[in-house]
């Protein structure tokens, strides 16, 4: 339904804090309607990227446009952002917190918000300060979903939830976004959260984009190779492929390669799972970044340059 539309386009995005660059020259595209994981170690720039997309921060360099709107234009109400610490007014009741959403968002959907809250058995007249972390997260999520966003930005949404609540909240989130075709960009460092949830992926490390693209596509261009060492090294014939990461144990080696043509040889090949792929990229900062064609930022639009 969103065929070619971009939810996010980042062009040479950079953000500098006093302690240094949190993001450097980030360019990527997130097509609309995707559920995208934003992965990276702590300090990779995930929160910064989400805050820029949410218009909470202004980038030092470059631009980020949401649904083609000029960068720096006011919040159109199409984006909702759930920050990592899930700030809420502690003295407000749950009902008042939802009223905040209603008062400040023209497209507010009270029913959705209340459904999310009620699904977690959160009493509407309870003070936010008296709720547990999990229930508070649920209220914060209700506030984000009640805004009826087309792009939902979540920063470590599951960090303070127990495994049961995590599954519940994720279920609510996915059902709601699937129903409306909402684009979801969700940062995490819990890799298990991503499997079976995300169909798109952006991997950040050291403030730079390492991987971006459709999960299937990213997986299909990589191969895990396991075989016997040749002398002290990997087999020479592997060199025609770009090597992402390799490990040696005993006489065996295991390598993750980006296959350039058939990777035939005296070894076994297997397709990697998402976790293997991520770990390989996060462990080897020297590997060349990979941004698949759908995730490439399009040529500059003159309108956005002018802004």
């Amino acid at each position: 339904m969103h065929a070619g539309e971009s939810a996010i386009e980042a062009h040479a995005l950079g953000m500098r804090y006093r302690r240094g660059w949190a993001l450097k020259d980030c360019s990527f595209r997130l097509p609309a309607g995707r559920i995208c994981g934003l992965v990276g170690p702590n300090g990779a720039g995930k929160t910064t990227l989400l805050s820029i997309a949410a218009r909470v921060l202004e980038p030092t360099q470059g631009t980020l446009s949401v649904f083609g709107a000029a960068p720096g234009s006011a919040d159109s109400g199409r984006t909702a952002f759930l920050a990592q610490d899930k700030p809420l007014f502690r003295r407000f009741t749950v009902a008042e917190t939802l009223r905040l959403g209603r008062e400040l968002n023209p497209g507010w959907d009270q029913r959705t918000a209340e459904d999310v809250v009620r699904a977690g058995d959160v009493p509407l007249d309870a003070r936010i300060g008296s709720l547990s972390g999990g229930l508070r997260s649920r209220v914060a999520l209700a506030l984000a979903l009640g805004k009826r966003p087309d792009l939902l930005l979540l920063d470590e949404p599951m960090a303070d939830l127990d495994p049961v609540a995590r599954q519940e909240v994720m279920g609510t989130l996915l059902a709601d976004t699937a129903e409306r075709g909402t684009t979801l960009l969700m940062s995490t460092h819990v890799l298990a959260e991503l499997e079976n949830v995300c169909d798109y992926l952006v991997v950040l490390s050291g403030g730079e984009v390492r991987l971006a693209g459709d999960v299937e596509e990213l997986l299909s261009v990589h191969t895990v190779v396991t075989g016997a060492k040749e002398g002290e090294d990997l087999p020479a014939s592997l060199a025609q492929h770009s090597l992402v990461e390799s490990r040696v144990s005993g006489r065996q080696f295991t390598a993750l390669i980006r296959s350039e043509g058939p990777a035939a040889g005296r070894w076994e090949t297997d397709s990697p799972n998402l976790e293997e792929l991520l770990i390989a990229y996060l462990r080897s900062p020297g590997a060349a970044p990979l941004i698949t064609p759908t995730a490439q930022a399009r040529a500059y639009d003159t309108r956005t340059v002018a802004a």
Partner: protein
Amino acid sequence: MSSLTSTSTTTGARAAGTGRLPQLFKGMAWLVWRQHRAAFWTVLGASALAVAYIVFQRSQVYIGGYSTTSTGLRLVPILLGVFLGAPLFAGDLENGTARLVAAQSVSRTRWLTTKLALTSVVVVVSTVALSAAFGWWFDLYQSEVTAAEWIFEYNFNTTGPVPVALALLSVLGGAAIGLVLRRTLAAMAVTLAFTVAVQLVWSHLLLSLGNVLTLTTSKGVTAEYPAQVLPTGAYRTGGASYITGDGKLLGIGTCADAQTERATELCLRKADVVGWSIDYLPMSQMTGMQWFGASILLALTAAVTAFLFLWGGKRPV
């Protein structure tokens, strides 16, 4: 809107009861009032009590508590600056709720504007009421012998536009300090220093707000004394001097060496002293001085407000 009706049925009176004035406050104004309602009601309630006390005391034609009340009123700008101004933005920046608001569909400018506007309205309403009530009490005494005291802070700073302007500068200054420091406690401490400094500088400048007049007499210096010739309520800005026939001023110690009354008279005649020259500020200038001073304070407040928008519109939350 169907969403609204669903609220009233599901959350019932609770939700409706959360905004006491649902008709008056909508959108951002609702949020700001809800967030700060305890502070706002405290300020308004305390002011109402103080006004009631002043009105009661005055109705007894009773001066008891006048100077204590005045001291209390002079603390009002400092208290408002520290407890209302400083936490206004610092609180939101410190506990992250500034980001919560920024994530809604409202502009940063609207957030700043609404917070400053509602707070200013509360400050103006309470200080105008206090100033009017205390000014009414002061009216009783301004014709009395002690009337020259109109120039002192306990009358000058508590009546007319001065308390309003002092409070606004203190509160907006405190808000700006909070916006820059982003920490409530630090902002309150710095605001305390700022508001006290404002009071000190203000006291220092107070006398230069008026247009000092000079009264000269010509009936000699022994027949009448300065206090007798000045109009009621005139405040002497300096010591009196002798004035000679050709308009020169001489210190009052000029003939102090003379041992007898006669010697003094001779000495004065020799020096051609014809009367007194006294610099003073008449009480009639009080209102003018108050408005002139208040307009300076309000211009500073406007500058602080401009800074608030410049700084607050750009910085990350």
